[in-house]
């Protein structure tokens, strides 16, 4: 038996191909949306992986340092390092801000997560684990390592607050959970960047302290200077990254830190839960809604196209039924056409998504599993969408082929 669906498609291939391309663009958008969601999760995971930490010690009762702000004294790490099972403890600061490229003719701002890393050297928790160009930070001030997604190049000068930094190294896939590229600078510089005020604010602060009789006492020399000095320095970090010794579990090490240091400690599993299930939960729901809408629109388009194509063949279907064609043959013809349309659409969509994904500013991760699931979803949607047309075709009276 010849394939009626195949012959019809070959006969009207232009109609099928152009409809398939239109459908394919919709499917491509859906695949990219899924890729955006996967990219967000991957961004969160690489953030955890690249930090190199087993535990995140943060301010008590906060979910920092990524999901909420957190402040710890910068000497807290010493006590943590002495706890049982702790191999290393490193201060770290995170601050998402606009970083200005200072050496370009036209000033250019880049949204970046500025990471302040403790001066413990490469390989320590918080440091970029690998570079694609240049070297790690070796000086204690004004050097930076940037993710290549920031667009910075070796030798570029960045301006963070009032200070300028030279890019000495480039890394890749070092991004925040929002997908912003990271810029690593020395911890002291980062602390300054977070808390240092501009000159006018410092001047005003000093004036207020000087005019305050409680601070500026005639009989207590040095008090005012001490207060001004304490206001001008920042002793805070956002978190302490802890690595644990072999033979210890994360929970074993975390429990005494929580108990004795009265701090909040997150294991990797807990931090993953915060980043994936809490931080991007709303975004993922948003994307899920878009995908549902796109699926409904795709189904409506396929249903409409198949319905129209079937309507165009009402007389032929009546003739086919009159000359003895089984209902299942006619139903199969319509369903095969819907599936063929889905196949063309999926192929176009997959190609579109593959080529379009790198053009998106945020990381789009196209997973083979998602594509396979998408393929079956498209086929199911097309099969369901063809049911309306099949129902109509089966109701066609063969007598319509005969006049009168």
């Amino acid at each position, binding site marked *: *038996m*010849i394939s*009626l669906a195949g*012959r*019809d498609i*070959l*006969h*009207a291939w232009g109609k099928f191909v152009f409809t398939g391309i239109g459908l394919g663009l919709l499917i491509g958008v859906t695949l990219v949306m899924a890729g955006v969601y996967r990219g967000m999760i991957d961004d969160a995971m690489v953030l955890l992986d690249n930090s190199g930490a087993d535990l995140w010690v943060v301010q008590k009762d906060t979910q920092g340092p990524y999901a909420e702000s957190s402040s710890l004294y910068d000497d807290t790490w010493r006590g943590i390092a002495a706890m049982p099972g702790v191999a290393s403890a490193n201060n770290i600061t995170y601050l998402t801000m606009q970083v200005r490229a200072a050496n370009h003719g036209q000033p250019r701002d880049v949204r970046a997560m500025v990471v302040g890393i403790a001066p413990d050297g490469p390989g320590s928790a918080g440091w970029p684990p690998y570079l694609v160009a240049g070297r790690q930070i070796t000086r204690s001030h004004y050097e930076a390592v940037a993710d290549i997604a920031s667009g910075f190049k070796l030798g570029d000068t960045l301006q963070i607050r009032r200070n300028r930094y030279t890019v000495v190294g480039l890394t890749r896939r070092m991004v925040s959970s929002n997908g912003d590229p990271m810029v690593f600078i020395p911890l002291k510089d980062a602390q300054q960047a977070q808390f240092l005020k501009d000159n006018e604010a410092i001047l005003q602060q000093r004036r207020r302290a000087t005019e305050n009789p409680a601070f500026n006492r005639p009989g207590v020399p040095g008090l005012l200077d001490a207060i001004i000095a304490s206001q001008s320095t920042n002793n805070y970090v956002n978190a302490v990254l802890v690595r644990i010794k072999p033979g210890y579990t994360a929970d074993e090490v975390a429990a005494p830190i929580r108990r004795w240091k009265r701090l909040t400690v997150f294991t990797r599993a807990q931090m993953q839960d915060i980043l994936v299930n809490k931080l991007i939960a709303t975004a993922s729901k948003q994307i899920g809604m878009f995908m549902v809408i796109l699926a409904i629109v795709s189904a409506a388009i396929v249903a409409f196209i198949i319905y129209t194509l079937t309507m165009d063949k009402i*007389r*032929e279907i009546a*003739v*086919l*039924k*009159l*000359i*003895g*064609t*089984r209902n299942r*043959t006619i139903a199969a013809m319509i369903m095969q056409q819907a599936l063929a349309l889905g196949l063309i659409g999926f192929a176009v969509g997959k190609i579109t998504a593959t080529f379009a994904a790198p053009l998106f500013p945020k990381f789009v991760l196209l997973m083979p599993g998602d594509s396979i699931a998408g393929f079956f979803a498209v086929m199911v949607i097309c099969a369901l969408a063809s049911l309306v047309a099949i129902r109509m075709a089966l109701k066609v*009276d*063969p*007598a319509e*082929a*005969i*006049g*009168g």
Partner: protein
Amino acid sequence: MTGRGIRIEGLKKRYGSGDTAVDALKGVDMEVAPGEVVGLVGPSGSGKSTLLKCLGAVIEPTAGRMTLGNEVIYDDGWKIRDLRALRRDKIGFVFQAPYLIPFLDVTDNVALLPMLAGEPNGKARQRALELLTALDVQHRAKAMPSQLSGGEQQRVAIARGLVNRPPVILADEPTAPLDSVRALAVIRILGDMAKRYQTAVIVVTHDEKIIPTFKRIYHIRDGVTHEEAGEGRGFD
């Protein structure tokens, strides 16, 4: 009647019920022998199409008896369970417009019926080509229907109606869209094929050009048929 041909006795068809019931057929008697071509003529609303639909097993009559060859297919109820197979294997249709399947070429349009009946594609196409040759359109075997003239399309439609060697062919105004030369040619072809394949052919028409070609004509009016001898000039 021999093993082919069709006989109808007292066939009735009522549409609706109660006060709104309409008796489209009020007891039609008709007999067409194998190899014979008869005309069925009548004004609009006389019951021609209803009769054709009953004969084609498309609608169910209300009462009467229909015999196809030696097989009773209707006797106050269908005696055949699979009407679709009956239409496919025992009844050939030729329509006013050819209604060829536009996405199949000429050969496959004709070969589709035997393929639907389960015949292998190659054998079905071979049979189609034989018929196309008999109807002198074999040179358009690979053409699509849209590439054919009106006369060629109608000949392909006749080939499709004949391909399963049905005992009866029902032709519904087969010459309506054709000029008189082509119309007479189509009727001549139907006559030739009826003789060659011993098929009974019923041609529904009110085409004055072809009515004189029939030897026997059934006039239908108000759901009742009257048989009369025709001039019968077309087939001898």
